[in-house]
């Protein structure tokens, strides 16, 4: 898989800001993308996602590291000769060309025979369900339709990897969900590797075969959606993907940890405990998802209900543990909803918690 796909090794890129000073946009990034894999690059604004895509496309030179595609060096090849194509966030369609001429552009640059171009463009139009719009210009299309043209224009060249920079960012929520499903369908049917940038963690979980989480120019974790959601390796990942309770932890020499000053448990029971405790010092926290916390009279942690909101499918309860600490709980809407001010106990299964140091 590795020799076939895209391999990014230790790539760094520093920008000098116009005001002076420098920004390390990419800091030793390494990532592999398999031949027909859907990899999502997820991270907050300014973490270097666009810079990484541009480096792969050749629109930005890298300072160090290397990029290979199908076993051949890519980062020394000019952008117009790379077997990767980009779907730009602004779509960047040619306003003076019709939809079909936009899609044909890349094949004309390859000097393909006319008949082949016509047939491949028709096929691409079908793939994105725009066959009836071939003669329109981009200005005569809706945002979602322009998005599909941008996708078809890049896909028709049959690149080895398709790069998508927040392609759904400009669409409203409903259209966004619809296009997500559509993208997944298209990716499966063409079998081309997708490297998809987003800062929306729900989108990342819904789309990715694997998710690479980027923060401050560094890849902090790569894994399947289940892995990054269930087993975040850092505090940042736990916090960024989904909702998480980060509970303060004290520990003693005997290997016992005390959570929120109330709940004692044996460190060895918790995933990641050893590394976290060695590395973390006082910074260690216990991460637990709200849906993994149960309101249970026999629970180890006690507090007062501060808030209870009915959200349709489930109920959100915030429990005040004292000293300003809140634990968020998500329970089934069929359970009894506790009253605000009620004293309750909660139970957390140690197997669903992680100790995180950084």
């Amino acid at each position, binding site marked *: 898989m590795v020799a076939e796909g895209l391999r990014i090794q230790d790539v760094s890129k520093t920008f000098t800001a*116009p005001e002076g000073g420098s920004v390390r946009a990419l800091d030793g990034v390494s990532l592999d993308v398999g031949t027909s894999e859907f990899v999502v690059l997820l991270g907050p604004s300014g973490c270097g996602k666009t810079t990484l895509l541009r480096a792969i*496309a*050749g*629109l930005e030179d890298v300072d160090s590291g290397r990029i290979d595609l199908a076993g051949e060096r890519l980062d020394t090849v*000019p*952008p*117009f*000769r790379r077997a990767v*194509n*980009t779907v*730009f*966030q*602004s779509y*960047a*369609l*040619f*306003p*003076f*060309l019709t939809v079909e001429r936009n899609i044909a*552009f*890349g094949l004309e*640059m*390859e000097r393909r025979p006319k008949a082949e171009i016509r047939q491949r463009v028709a096929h691409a139009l079908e793939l994105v369900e725009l066959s009836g719009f071939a003669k329109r*210009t*981009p*200005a005569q299309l809706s945002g979602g339709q322009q998005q599909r043209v941008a996708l078809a*224009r*890049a896909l028709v*060249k049959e690149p080895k990897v398709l790069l998508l920079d927040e392609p759904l960012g400009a669409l409203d929520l409903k259209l966004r969900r619809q296009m997500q499903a559509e993208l997944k369908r298209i990716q499966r049917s063409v079998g081309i590797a997708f490297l998809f940038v987003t800062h929306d963690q729900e989108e990342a979980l819904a789309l990715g075969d694997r998710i690479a989480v980027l923060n401050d120019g560094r890849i902090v974790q790569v894994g399947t959606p289940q892995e990054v959601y269930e087993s975040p390796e850092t505090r940042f990942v736990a916090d960024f993907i989904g909702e998480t309770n980060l509970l303060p932890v004290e520990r003693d020499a005997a290997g016992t940890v005390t959570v929120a000053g109330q709940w004692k448990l044996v460190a060895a029971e918790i995933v990641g405990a050893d590394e976290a405790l060695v590395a973390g010092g006082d910074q260690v926290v216990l991460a637990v998802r709200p849906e993994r916390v149960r309101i249970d009279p026999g629970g180890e942690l006690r507090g007062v209900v501060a808030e209870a909101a009915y959200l349709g499918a489930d109920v959100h309860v915030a429990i005040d543990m004292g000293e300003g600490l809140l634990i968020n709980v998500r329970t089934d809407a069929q359970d009894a909803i506790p009253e605000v001010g009620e004293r309750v106990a909660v139970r957390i299964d140690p197997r669903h918690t992680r100790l995180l140091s950084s």
Partner: protein
Amino acid sequence: MTGQADTRRYPGIGPAARLAFAFLYAPLAVVVAYSFNSGPIVSRWEGFSLVWYREVLERSDVRDAVWVSLRVAVAASAAGTALALLAALGIVAMVRRGSPLAVGFLSTPLLVPEIVTAVGTLSFFVLLDFERGMTTLVLAHTAFCIPFALLPIRARLAELDPAVFEAASDLGASGFRLFRRVTLPLLVPGIVSGALLAFIISLDDYLISAFVAGPTSTTLPIFLFGLIRRGASPLINAVSTLLLLVTVAVLTASYITGKWRKPK
């Protein structure tokens, strides 16, 4: 917005504005009106007639001057626009590399007193031992057309999404094909608008032309100035009215193409 509306309601603003407009347009109105005067004296109205327009068409010295002016304007606006296009693309590259000087260098000629440019251009030709005539005229006009042609081209470049060029490159376009298939079509409105503007600037120029023209290359403005020194004649009004007509038509076209955004 509201501030603007308020100022417009100040007492006296309305009449003042009307007065300013009168100052601007009264001379033009006089020129146009008297071009239809039947008498030979500029300052006395003797009735409506097209006699001066007939004279414009019949006099060979007028025709020669028009012909010289048109040839110079076409050649200089074409060459000036081509150079402005190259300059615009150069500026894009320089700005990308972070040079703040690029735009300034090409725009300052707009602010330099024309007489300085005229003297400079003449000295330059004398230094190079150029004989004054059509060639020097076209060269000088090309030079001062560049910054004017550059204005709409740069305005157009500024409103384009730079990602479009990156997309073209990403799809396999490079070098001349990138220029011809993407850059040029995107810039067409700016180029047309710039060329028309340059054409008018060239057509209307007197000062620089007077310095660099030779005895056989009298442009229309030089010819008109010569006529007026021999005493004002309604012929001047007729020629001026025609020149005004051409200017307004071309500038309107330039403005419309500059605003043109709809794809073909």
